[in-house]
């Protein structure tokens, strides 16, 4: 029982980080209707940048986020503006998907050239510290990571709910044609949306680098997990994504603790396949679509 509850705590904390990573993905899908296969690579890129800033300049990994996020925002906006925007064709959605895949490869290639393919982690002094509350261990980094994720998610929700940009995004998500007629500039919103999605990867990357070891190749399994979460949450629904991320965090932590750590990653795909079998539109697809 103790073990189970410990696993659930760990799972919720991990799930919070996944929620952050996947929310960027969901935002991009909502705005562009494109599954962004580069999201995992963006997270890994951010992890490397954060790691470099920490190692070279001694900047605390959490404090690297405000430095890395604008850089990734610009990168994301540039990807949309230079690579995705020109694809105005009948099969643009398929081509866009593959272009984001190419972007992931490009990022992986650059990272391999610069950093080689050794595994690394970001190790601040507090990396392995933890609190014990009522007999349960709570890692400091994981808790801080989860809180940061919640803070970014909250900021994202405020941005979408309360600002002009947010209204434009929501209008674009619901009805691109009508939004254009009302003077929302689709391309600009898309670029900002992609940039914002990439910027959330910056926060996620710093955290990811402290919790897991990574190399340039890690984006494949990361994107697989993120995509499982996004599908589970019903593509394009922010609320659904958060719930799905927490659920997947808990499920994989439980599998890891009670069965074997080897199979904990695997639980993502079992759940993904099971969900697609029962509800091809995702768990929350029908109810929460448009809730973004």
């Amino acid at each position, binding site marked *: 029982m103790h073990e189970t509850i410990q696993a659930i705590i760990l799972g919720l904390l991990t799930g919070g980080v996944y929620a952050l990573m996947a929310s960027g993905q969901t935002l991009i899908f909502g705005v562009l209707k494109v*599954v962004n*296969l580069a999201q995992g690579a963006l997270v890994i890129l951010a992890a490397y940048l954060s790691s470099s800033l920490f190692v070279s300049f001694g900047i605390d990994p959490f404090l690297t986020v405000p430095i890395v996020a604008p850089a990734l925002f610009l990168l994301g906006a540039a990807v949309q503006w230079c*690579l995705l925007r*020109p*694809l105005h*064709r009948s*099969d643009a*959605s*398929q*081509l866009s*998907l*593959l*272009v984001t*895949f*190419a*972007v992931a*490869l*490009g990022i*992986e*290639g*650059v990272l*391999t*050239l610069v950093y080689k*393919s050794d595994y690394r982690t970001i190790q601040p002094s507090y990396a392995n510290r933890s609190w014990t509350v009522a007999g349960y261990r709570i890692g400091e980094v994981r808790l801080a990571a989860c809180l940061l994720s919640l803070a970014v998610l909250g900021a994202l929700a405020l941005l979408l709910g309360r600002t002009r940009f947010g209204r434009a995004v929501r209008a674009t998500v619901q009805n691109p044609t009508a939004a254009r007629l009302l003077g929302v500039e689709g391309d600009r919103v898309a670029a900002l949306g992609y940039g914002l999605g990439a910027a959330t990867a910056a926060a996620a990357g710093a955290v990811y680098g402290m919790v897991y070891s990574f190399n340039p190749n890690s984006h*494949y*399994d990361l*994107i*697989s997990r993120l*995509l*499982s979460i*996004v*599908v589970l949450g019903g*593509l394009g629904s922010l609320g659904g994504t958060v719930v799905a991320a927490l659920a997947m965090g808990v499920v994989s932590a439980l599998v890891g603790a009670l069965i074997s750590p*080897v*199979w904990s*990653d*695997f639980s*993502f*795909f079992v759940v*993904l*396949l099971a969900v*697609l*079998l029962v509800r*091809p539109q995702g768990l929350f697809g029908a109810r929460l679509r448009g809730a973004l």
Partner: protein
Amino acid sequence: MRTAAPVAGFVALLAAFPFLVTAPWLMTIALFTLMYAVLASAWNLVGGYAGYPSLGHAAFFGLGAYAEAIWFQHHGIGSGLAPFAVLPLVGLAVAAAGLPVAWIAMRTRSDVFAIVTITLLFVAQTLAYNLRGITHGAQGMAMPVPDFAPATFERPFYYAMLALLVFALLLSWAVLRSRLGLALLAVRADEDKARGVGVPVGTAKLGAFALSVGITGMAGGVWAYYLSFIYPQFAVDPLVTIAMVLMVFLGGRGTLWGPVLGAFVIAPAQQYLAYQYGASQLYLLGYAALFVLVMLVLPRGVLPTLADRWRRRRLRADVGPEVAVEQP
């Protein structure tokens, strides 16, 4: 048959190649070029004809490689040419394994399909690492090194790949000529409408997927025997998927010869660069750059673009300039 003669000539040239060129490194390049032509043609059946972009075909390539290796561990049939004889079984086994996957993945549309297939890569790798009793995990699996003469060591593998390529092309041609081909083109254009005119879209998609991954698996089997040692990270390599997709897009999706053209351009270049410079991390950048370039500049691929240009020129010549002016 207007095209029969050039095709026969092409195949004859490929068949004669090992006798014209003997340098082993060139034979290796030729072998991998044929392999990628097979893989690209196979991918085209799903990604090109049906318009479902699979990003997980490398998983089935790896499955074929492991199937071949596992067969040998358990049956230990000497070496020599016998391993080629089990390839059809490997193909059938991989096709059968692909069916349930396709059944789940293709209930949804191409976005989710791409997602499911990309996760397959990771699933296959995880299985290869962790089912140690079957795959020996990270240690990899060995197959007996065949006793072919060193000077012509590549030849049997080359001809096996050539046979697979001929098979893949014949199959692609037959599919295009069949009602299945018509159904797949309809699915690619408008799947909902296709259902509305009674096309059994589910069966058509499953059939195409099974054929496609079956061929992919057989290529994996030959590859495994050639290397005689396989590791999870090389047997299930995302780069293999990327290469297939890129070759098909470059040559022309949904055409018979486009994938072959794409493979014959990209694979030798990639192998040559690897051989000369050994800079494997540059592959990624090269692939990424070429990928983006093709998408932006030549999204339909070489062959359809050329065909279109040729058809327009002929049309203009037929109609004559004075009629063209009347067009509003």
